[in-house]
């Protein structure tokens, strides 16, 4: 019996925050409600939480959140900041803390009111001051979209990838969103619609970009013994991994390669599976190109073949690799960091709770968070067993 067979880790609760436009809450109050719902699924209360894995809800990561929730003496706290990949990375961190008794019940989550606060500006001020910024800021590249656009442009150049292929990804997300009553955008969308949307940074258009909404969520991880308390079926974490590459785009040898290569190999390797064993994928779809590079770097297709791979609705309802089954950041919800919500959607699918968008008896799902300027990645393999 392997270490992880003897010490299995489970997602024992998962809940979204209020979504869309949330005018009558703060980030902390939204998160408190979601965390309580997730704990309720686990058959637990805030008093059971002894590990806090959160970020972006206060100046000092876990501290304000812990105080707000009345978790007065956690034994393990973590507010590592690797952007949108942080929350899948927290799964990785928690699964390495729980078997050693460093904590027993891990609360992972995030909430933001990015839409209500309108604090997302595609301007130069968005990136923090750092040493190398003096060599990039003066050139007026909008962040993050300009960076993703240059990654896409290079991918087009090297591999012949086309805008219509990226558009297929946006269309797949929308088709899933049409099956999700919580999705922000549910009107029909075609490849032509995407191609006719406003060019923002060539080759990326308005509909290659994720939404800006309020949202977030919470998930609870624990061990096998505590999973017996759960009111809903626990979902096992079979593997997890994380990595990062560079901060400035100029510092990458090949900008089309993401840290998903390393995080994916670690997670799938730990789970002892290959991409052919995966029933669905929840990629972080911040931009259409983000999904394309994830498919390649996780090994669902070869580098450069992502464009052909997504054609003919492969990711859409009825396709061979269902992906973004909530509608994703492109059509369901994107609160600035989607990472925790892709975990929640995977849990819903594996429990059979996904309503009209429910897949037929899925056994294994992969969640893949990415962050910053395709600089970070974290991957986890979840299973219904």
């Amino acid at each position, binding site marked *: 019996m392997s270490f992880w067979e003897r010490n299995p880790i489970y997602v024992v609760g998962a809940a979204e925050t209020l979504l869309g436009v949330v005018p009558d809450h703060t980030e902390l109050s939204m998160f408190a409600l979601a965390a309580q719902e997730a704990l309720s699924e686990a058959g637990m209360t805030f008093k059971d939480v002894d590990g806090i894995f959160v970020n972006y809800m206060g100046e000092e990561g876990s501290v304000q959140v812990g105080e707000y929730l009345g978790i007065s003496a956690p034994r393990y706290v973590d507010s590592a900041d690797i952007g949108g990949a942080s929350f899948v990375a927290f799964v990785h961190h928690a699964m390495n803390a729980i078997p050693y008794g460093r904590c027993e019940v891990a609360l992972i989550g995030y909430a933001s009111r990015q839409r209500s606060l309108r604090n997302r500006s595609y301007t*130069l001020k968005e990136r923090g001051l750092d040493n190398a910024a*003096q060599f990039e800021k003066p*050139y007026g590249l*909008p962040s993050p*979209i*300009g960076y993703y656009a240059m990654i896409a442009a290079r991918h087009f150049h090297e591999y012949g990838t086309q805008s219509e292929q990226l558009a297929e990804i946006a269309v797949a997300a929308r088709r899933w969103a049409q099956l999700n009553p919580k999705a922000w955008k549910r009107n029909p969308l075609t490849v032509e619609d995407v191609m006719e949307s406003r060019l*923002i*940074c060539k080759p*990326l258009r308005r509909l290659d970009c994720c939404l800006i909404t309020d949202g977030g969520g919470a998930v609870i991880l624990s061990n096998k013994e505590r999973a017996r308390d759960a009111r809903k079926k626990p979902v096992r974490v079979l593997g997890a991994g994380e990595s990062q590459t560079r901060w400035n785009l100029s510092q990458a040898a090949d900008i089309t390669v993401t840290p998903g290569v390393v995080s994916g190999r670690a997670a799938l390797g730990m789970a002892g599976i290959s991409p052919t064993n995966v029933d669905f994928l929840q990629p972080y779809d911040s931009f259409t190109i983000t999904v394309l590079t994830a498919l390649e770097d996780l090994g669902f297709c070869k580098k450069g073949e992502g464009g052909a791979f997504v054609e003919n609705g492969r990711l859409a309802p009825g396709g061979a690799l269902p992906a973004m089954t909530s509608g994703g950041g492109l059509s369901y919800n994107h609160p600035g960091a989607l990472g925790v919500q892709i975990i929640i959607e995977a849990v819903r699918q594996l429990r059979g709770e996904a309503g009209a968008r429910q897949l037929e008896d899925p056994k294994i799902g992969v969640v893949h968070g990415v962050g910053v300027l395709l600089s970070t990645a974290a991957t986890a393999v979840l299973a219904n067993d």
Partner: protein
Amino acid sequence: MTDPALEPYGDPITGPFWEAAARRVLLIQRCEDCEACQFYPRPICLACESRHLAWIEASGTATIYSLTTVHLRTAPEFEPPYVTALIDLDEGVRMLTIIIGDNPKIGDRVRLAWRERDGLPPLPIWTTEWRKQ
């Protein structure tokens, strides 16, 4: 220009770059031990970890690695559309920059130019035009 984020820092490691830029000279670092060039400046050679780094003047020729045309207004000093690119200098280092000139494409050869700025050193940009400025 009011945005402090756009101002050079002039810290001890990067200061010489901006001092040279004021004279329209583009400096990059080259390792005195392994001869590898690097950008942006650091106190240690990323190739061999030597601390013996010297400044050399770049040849001023480069090749476009990737680029995007920006159709979004980000700041008053940038009038869209404009082209931002990653370029590979002939010395083997990569920089983010603005490209001027007609219809730049990946793989095109570009030449160093300079953009005057109020109260700041000239900014190195690159052009597809090969006539003398």
